[in-house]
Structure formats: C-alpha cells, structure tokens
C-alpha cells in the first residue's frame, strides 16, 4: 500500500515538474514537435509516382481569415457583383483554420494545393512559382511576386502608454524593420534610426496569430535596447486583437488584414508594420512547379477538378 502511494506521489511530482519546465520553454518544445512531425511525413511519402489524372485536393482557409481575404482578392477569385464582392472559392475546397493543419494536409497529400503566409513556410512542402516568379521576400518587394498583404497594428486614439508608444517607434525604425526582414517578411521603406526614450512599464500586445511570430522577435530585439520595459504578447486572432484594443485590454492590437470600417469608427488607428507574401504550396512529390495566376484561379473556383485539366 505504502509503495503505491509513493509511486503515485512520485508521478504527480514529475508531472508538476514537467508542467513547470514546460511553461519556461514552451516555444522550443512546440517547435521541436512540429519539425519532428514534418520529418515523419517526409519519409512516408517518398517513392510513389505522381499521377496527374487524380483529383485536386483544394485546401483553403476559413471565411473571414486575413490570409484567405488577401488570397482571393489577389488571384481574382473574388468577383464583383454591383457593390457586393462574391467569394467564388469552390464549395469543394477543404477548409482549415490553422496554418499547421494546412501544412500537414499538403505535406501528406500528393495532390493537394494550399496557401500559407511566407513567414510560416517550411521544408515539408514546396512553394510553387506564380507566373514564373518565386515566392521570396525579394520578389515581393520588387513587385514580381504579386501575392502579398499588409500586417497591421492598431492602437486606440490618444494612447497614453509610454512603453507602447516607444515600442511602436522601435517597430517603425531601421532596427525594427531589419528584424522584420530577417524573418522573411517585407519591411517598410524609408525608416529612420531608432531614438528610444527607454521608458519603463508594461504594455500588452495581442491579436493575429499570423503577425505574432514576427512580433515576438520584435519584442526580443526591443527588450535588448530597453530592458526596463515589460511587453506581454498574447496570440489570439485579428478580430479579438481589434476588439481588445478598443476596450483597452490590449495596448496594441495586431491584425493580418485591413481594419473594418466599424473598427476604425471605434477610434482605432492602424499602422502597417510589414508586408507578408502568401505562398501557394504543393506537395513535394508533385511535378507541378510553376502555375499562372489564371491556373490558380481555375483550381480555386472549381473549374479544374483534376490535375490533367490544369497542366497540359
């Protein structure tokens, strides 16, 4: 009996220990787990032949997602009917609300096509060239790769948090924009060197999960310059980011889309902090490397059902 109690106590303690260490380095462990998963899928899929007579698996993001909004607009999948814009994405498209499921689905399915933010692209899938242009930050900047969208931050009018103000100045400075560039996003041009006032205090930043990876890096870089500031990052989504910025629970809200009129009318001021390219991704085994925007459109509107119909 005593033995059992001892074992139970030991296992409880070890679980607690794991929980505590987990809090400290949660980011690292999750990154490891995802790269492991990618490695697994890669070994599974090698060796089979790619047969273009198979059905295309179309993967799309959910309605209202910033990535989807930018994607359908840029490829002309959105059609105007009077004042109304109609999203012509085929109803057969699989819908997912997370980048990681999108990547896993495409990495697993040889006949799938999807799209992710350029910053989230990894080795488990390949990005296809659009109209001959490769999906790289340089090409987005030079304009040859046209599929991109802005990353916004928003603050309430008359924000009186010195730390938040100083941090925004940092983001919009040469130093901040170099962090943006290092992380494969496209920086804003003509920025000045950073002149910080090094205020101490606390600020809460939150919102879009697409923006938060680069925001995390920005916070890291800012903390080196101003260790007195405590910046807290909360990853939720664009809408939560904006509503929380309005009600004051976030000092800075992040959005991976343009702000809605209703949000602007509630006193939010938006600033574009970076541009993000959207990569069209396919399985590594696929023999398709290059698609025209017309072809992408015909896939996503459901005109082409098998890969035969897309590539001659």
């Amino acid at each position, binding site marked *: 009996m005593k033995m059992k109690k001892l074992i139970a106590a030991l296992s409880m303690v070890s679980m607690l220990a794991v929980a505590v260490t987990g809090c400290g380095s949660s980011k690292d462990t999750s990154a490891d787990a995802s790269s492991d*998963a990618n490695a*697994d*899928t890669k070994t599974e899929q090698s060796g089979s032949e790619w047969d273009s007579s*198979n*059905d295309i*698996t179309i993967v799309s993001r*959910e*309605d*209202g*997602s*910033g990535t989807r909004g930018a994607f359908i607009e840029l490829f002309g999948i959105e059609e105007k009917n009077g004042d*109304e*814009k*109609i*999203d012509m994405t085929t*109803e*057969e*498209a*699989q*819908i*997912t*609300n997370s980048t990681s*499921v999108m990547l*896993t*689905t495409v990495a*697993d*399915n040889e*006949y*799938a096509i999807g799209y992710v933010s350029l910053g989230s692209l990894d080795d488990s899938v390949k990005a296809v060239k659009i109209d001959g242009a490769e999906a790289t930050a340089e090409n987005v900047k030079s304009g040859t790769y046209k599929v991109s969208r802005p990353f916004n931050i928003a603050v309430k009018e008359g924000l009186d948090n010195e730390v938040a103000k100083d941090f925004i100045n940092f983001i919009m400075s040469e130093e901040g924009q170099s962090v943006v560039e290092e992380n494969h996003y496209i920086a804003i041009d003509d920025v000045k060197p950073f002149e910080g006032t090094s205020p101490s205090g606390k600020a809460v930043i939150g919102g879009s999960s697409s923006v938060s990876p680069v925001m995390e890096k920005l916070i890291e870089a800012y903390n080196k310059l101003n260790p007195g500031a405590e910046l807290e990052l909360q990853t*939720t*989504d*664009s*809408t*939560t980011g904006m509503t929380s910025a309005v009600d004051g629970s976030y000092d800075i809200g992040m959005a991976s*889309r343009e702000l*809605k009129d*209703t*949000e602007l009318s509630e006193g939010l001021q938006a600033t574009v902090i970076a541009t993000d390219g959207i990569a069209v991704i396919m399985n590594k085994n696929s023999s398709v490397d290059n698609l025209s925007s017309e072809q992408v459109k015909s896939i996503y509107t459901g005109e082409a*059902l098998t890969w035969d119909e897309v590539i001659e």
Partner: protein
Amino acid sequence: MQGVFFIAACASVLAVALICIFLFANGIPAMKEIGFLKFISGEKWRPNNDIYGVLPMIVGSIYVTAGAIIIGVPIGILTSVFMAMYCPKRIYKPLKAATELLAGIPSVVYGFFGLVVLVPWVRELGITLKQLGITRTSGDGNSMLTASILLGMMILPTIIGVTESAIRSVPPQYYEGALALGATHERSIFRVIIPAAKSGVIAGIVLGIGRAIGETMAVIMVAGNQARMPAGILKGIRTLTANIVMEMGYATDLHREALIATGVVLFVFILIINFSVALLNRRTERE
C-alpha cells in the same frame, strides 16, 4: 456550514443560467435579423455576403453523428457483453483500463491521429474506388467517413461504460433461468439479458450521441469543413461545432452573432438529448 455547500451547489446552476442567457441574448436577435426560417433552412453559408444558412451544418452534424453511431454502437455493445459475460478475470483488468484510457485521451490527439493515419487510408480507398470506376471523384480523405470512424472510436468508452454497468445490473436469475430453460449462452445473453438492460443500453447510446454531436477539435481536423450540403460519404462535411470554432477568430458584427446563433441551434440539440436521457431514466425508475 450548510451555507458553504449551498453556494457550491449554486455555482453550477449559475454557470448554466449565465450560458443560457448569453447564448439566447446574443443568438436570438441575430436569428431575427437574418430571418429564422432563412437561418435554419438556408443552404448557403457566405458570411462575406451576409448569407447565413445553417442547414448544411445541421445535416452535417446529424450525418456524422449517425455514422459514429453505426460504427461505435455495435462494437461498443459487443465489447460490453464480452466484458460483462465472457471475459476471463486476467484480461478484464487491462481491458477495462484500456477503455477508460480511451476516454481520457484529449480530442486534439484523436484529431491528429485521424489526420495522419485515418485520412491517408480513406484517401487511398477513394482513389481505388475511382480507378475501379465505382465513384466519379475520389475525394481527398478528409470526409464524412473519416469523421464518422474517428467519432465512432471516441464514443466507445461512453457506450461501453454505461452498457456494461446496465448488463451487470440485470439480476443473475434471469440468465440462470434462461439457461435452465435450455437456451444457449449466446441466446440467453441476446434474448434475455440485453432486452432486460435495454434502457441502460439506450441511455449509453444517447450519451454517445451527445458526445459525438458536441465534439469539435477532432472533427475539424479530419472532416474537410466544406460549408455545403453533404455530397457523399467520401466528401467533406462541416458540423455545427466546427462552424463556430473555424470562423469565430475573424468574425465581426452580424457574422459573429450568426455564429452564436449556430451555438443556440447546437444547444437546442443538446437539450433534446439530455431531455431524452432524463425521460429514459424516469421510465427505468418506474419499471
């Protein structure tokens, strides 16, 4: 001292009341604005154009749940019969532990398992069927069938647990009497014991339905989530729960309220299920 217990008891009642108020206060106005019939019977869900019809999701939830019942119930009942009537003591303990563990696995883990194991299987099946000329399109593995199989697995512990205790609570005289009359082992189980445990078995199935209809994370990962009327068992489907979780993140204004209204529809479903469980329990008590 009694007051402390009373307050503790009130907490859960208060939680339910608050959820009800929140749901209905936000959902009903949205339903009115969209038009109640249009909302319930509309076949199109295009939030960007303010077209909100949840019929595809209602039908989707019902189909997926039905699929889970078709797969989970026979396995669940046969398992509990085995555990209650056939199982040698040596196997019983690990078997019981395994079914209990099945209940404890987080649904996102089920979802990931479905995504990397079940989806490729169903996709291969679809491609084979297409090559044989049985179906016109192959589907992509994220389908109604996949979701049904996964949910069928997830409701097993619920069904097994309730059914096993129902079978065990049948007085042993019934079984012995059947044997004495010359019935075989199997015959006495399926003709005497199970009918006697009927209400418990049905309660288990209804609880399983509740679990299946409310499941979100695992379904999202394998069902494809297309917001259109179900088109075949190898095609994707979107359930009510998936609809809410998928779009909540980016929804604003009426779109957001429409999602809460979807929650109201789901809530009504769950109410009906709980009500039928209560009804069944009352009937058992009377018997």
